[in-house]
């Protein structure tokens, strides 16, 4: 399968997503917008888990911190400036990740998983139990931010279709940004750390700094997702920071296939799509989801991202490339 076919496929998916509001009902437009937000979240975690080899089980903290930032700084009955609250939320999430990274990146393996979880639980309880989170039930974001820029208003997030396109553009931008990062000298160092951190050190790389930069970037991008989620649903709750949320996004990355950005996006679609479908059938939808995850790990070790290649190989369609 050559890269031209892959690019064509990605562009076709993008075109489909762009046309979707014209054909989908408002329920489905909101659902796909939610999936796109989670795709950003999953890509941000994929940078750590799939590309750097850092399995974080507390990634929801940065998602939730950004969501709370916009809810807390936006005025109660009037629109905040979109660009200001977006920047503030992403900065807050990135700063939190930088601070946490200073501590957790000194650990490895199972300890890293545990301390990322521990910090996320601390963040959860800060918003759940202290005055900062106002109420354990959450906070409403009554008015969507206003996109005006020096008096010019390019779009309005009050319109569901325009909100959808804003989220789609953000998803595409994060995808493109991470694609560049991964092939840059910085991204190659992350790949080297994933493969053999000890050797990277002996080659002269201060690996801690690179991991801290990756952790901060991943936190900031999770913040983009958390911000968009808060704006999309007009509501934030401590559950955004809960370990369920951290686990769900990790499952999206695994379902999509480690080491693939497109896989992370596909994983978000599959996970939320199945969640919707199963919860329509039964309130014990988590049982079904569990079965799907087990089956996926057993029978699809390369995830959804590895699927096209395997299908191509089975039907012997197109050229054999290995």
């Amino acid at each position, binding site marked *: 399968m050559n890269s031209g076919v892959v690019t064509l496929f990605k562009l076709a998916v993008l075109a489909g997503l762009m046309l979707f509001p014209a054909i989908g009902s408002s329920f489905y437009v909101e659902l796909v917008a939610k999936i796109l937000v989670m795709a950003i979240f999953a890509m941000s975690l994929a940078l750590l888990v799939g590309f750097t080899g850092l399995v974080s089980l507390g990634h929801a903290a940065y998602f939730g911190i950004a969501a709370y930032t916009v809810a807390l700084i936006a005025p109660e009955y009037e629109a905040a400036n979109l660009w200001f609250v977006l920047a503030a939320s992403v900065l807050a999430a990135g700063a939190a990740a930088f601070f946490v990274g200073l501590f957790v990146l000194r650990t490895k393996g199972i300890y890293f998983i545990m301390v990322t979880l521990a910090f996320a639980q601390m963040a959860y309880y800060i918003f759940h139990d202290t005055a900062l989170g106002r109420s354990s039930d959450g906070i409403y974001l009554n008015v969507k931010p206003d996109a005006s820029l020096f008096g010019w208003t390019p779009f309005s997030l009050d319109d569901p279709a325009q909100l959808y396109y804003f989220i789609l553009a953000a998803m595409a931008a994060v995808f493109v940004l991470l694609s560049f990062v991964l092939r840059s*000298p910085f991204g190659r160092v992350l790949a080297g750390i994933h493969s053999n951190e000890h050797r990277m050190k*002996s080659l002269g790389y201060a690996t801690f700094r690179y991991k801290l930069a990756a952790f901060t970037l991943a936190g900031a991008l999770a913040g983009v997702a958390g911000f968009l989620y808060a704006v999309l649903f007009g509501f934030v709750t401590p559950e955004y920071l809960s370990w369920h949320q951290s686990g769900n996004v990790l499952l999206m990355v695994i379902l999509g296939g480690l080491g693939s950005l497109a896989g992370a996006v596909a994983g978000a679609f599959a996970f939320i799509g199945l969640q919707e479908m199963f919860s329509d059938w039964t309130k014990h939808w988590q049982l079904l989801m569990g079965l799907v995850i087990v089956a996926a790990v057993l029978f699809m070790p390369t995830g959804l991202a590895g699927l096209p290649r395997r299908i191509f190989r089975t039907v012997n369609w197109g050229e054999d490339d290995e």
Partner: protein
Amino acid sequence: MSEAMLVADRLTRHFGGLTANLEVCITLERGKLHALLGPNGAGKSTCINMLSGDLPPSAGRILLEGQDVTGLDSAERSHRGIGRSYQRTNIFPQFTVLENCRLAAQSRRPRPWRIFTDAMKTRDTVERARAAIVEAGLGGREQRKAGLLSHGEQRQLEIAMVLATDARVLLLDEPLAGMGSEESAQMVELLRELKQNRAILLVEHDMDAVFAVADTITVMVEGSVLESGPPEQIRNSEEVQAAYLGEEEHG
């Protein structure tokens, strides 16, 4: 004319109650290959680990061109010009040979903020990597996956990666381990070329190879230096023969 590059000054390392190295002194000179011999458990690995920065010494100093580098970690020492290859092959198996060496070269030209630059197209790192690959005798294998190379080629790749960091002091931990006789002969030839303008420490079990290329040999036994001198002196030393051969019979 000899010029001291790396000096180990009374290096000592304890592991709990065990003294793995006791006041070990070694001097590496430019243009010279210094071999470190000794039976298993003599402390050779501990010594090379202290020199490379993988292990902090309990006492003693390490001087690189007169500057104290004892407190620097392995990454910092790499930047000062000390490069190390490992006894157990330590490469990036999923990457191509070229990318293994390009990453090594990139450590000298890091550009971490250039996130819109394609790393594979940074010409200086690619050129440095290609030159190191050719120097280590792997020319033509650039696009092969490192994990698919033969064992001997992986040993060569280890050295190519060190060369790509522009190291002036090479610490080579058993580069001939597990090699066939033809591959060994090639590696000995490579070592001769490499020492021209560098200082090399060679930890090696292959006696024929050591006596063929070493300018100085240090023999360690039970964590201490037993004797150090030119190959003829070591070959004829009764003390070395007694200690070394005696140990070999047990082990």
